[in-house]
């Protein structure tokens, strides 16, 4: 049963990702990205990490996708259709495939640690415990990073005088 769900999720993730890199329209690519990210949320659920699946849906397929679609709209990519892909597509395919080949070769030769017990669902309280006690300082730094990025994004994209 788990195996069936895993393959469904894997097909969603890989199919969506292929759509992102292959499809001719940027809006379709964005929608394929949503599909892929939701598939990743499903993979987190299979790994029994409910909190991450929730965050994935909220942050990635919610906030980040809204941002990306807004910028697609503002940069009028749909109107200026030329050159979504460069001339280097075959080279890129060769590079990516050889990288994948190397990965698979390594993965098939490695002795992965076997975990025979059951996966237990990671409760929210455990994660918040770890996040706010042991990892409190990195957590605060991450929030500072987010704040700085927010202010920086506003400053960078602010309209200057004389600009159209």
């Amino acid at each position: 049963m788990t195996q069936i769900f895993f393959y469904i999720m894997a097909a969603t993730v890989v199919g969506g990702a292929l759509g992102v890199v292959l499809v001719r329209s940027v809006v379709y690519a964005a929608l394929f990205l949503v599909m892929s990210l939701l598939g990743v949320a499903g993979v987190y659920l299979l790994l029994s990490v409910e909190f991450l699946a929730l965050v994935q849906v909220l942050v990635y397929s919610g906030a980040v996708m809204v941002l990306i679609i807004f910028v697609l709209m503002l940069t009028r990519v749909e109107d200026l259709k030329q050159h979504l892909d460069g001339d280097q597509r075959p080279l890129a395919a060769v590079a990516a495939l050889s990288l994948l080949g190397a990965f698979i070769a390594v993965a098939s030769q490695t002795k992965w640690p076997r975990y025979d017990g059951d996966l237990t669902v990671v409760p929210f309280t455990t994660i918040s415990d770890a996040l706010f006690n042991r990892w409190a300082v990195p957590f605060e730094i991450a929030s500072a990073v987010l704040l700085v990025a927010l202010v920086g994004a506003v400053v960078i994209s602010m309209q200057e005088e004389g600009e159209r």
Partner: protein
Amino acid sequence: MEDVAAGVSLQHYVVLSMILFSIGVYGVLARRNAVLILMSVELMLNAVSINMVAFAVYTAPSLFEGIIFAIFIIAVAAAEVGLALGVILRIFRNRGTANVDEVNSLKW
């Protein structure tokens, strides 16, 4: 607790994340539109997150380092997307294009 791990090993997740990462690499190399490149980078970040979480769950179920790492990856990715989209918007306003091949000079 029901048997969640049945039939799916760590290797499955690692191979899935490798495939996703390679697709992201292809997208970054082949796509010329800055927003599409950014979307491919998101795919690669997600591949890394899957790897982190799978290793955390399968090799050290009582520790949560990998999961915490994935949370930070998501936070940093959100910050990165916000900043990068601001830069792309700025480039589009100044140069009238979001194509990275046409943005090839530091001076204009």
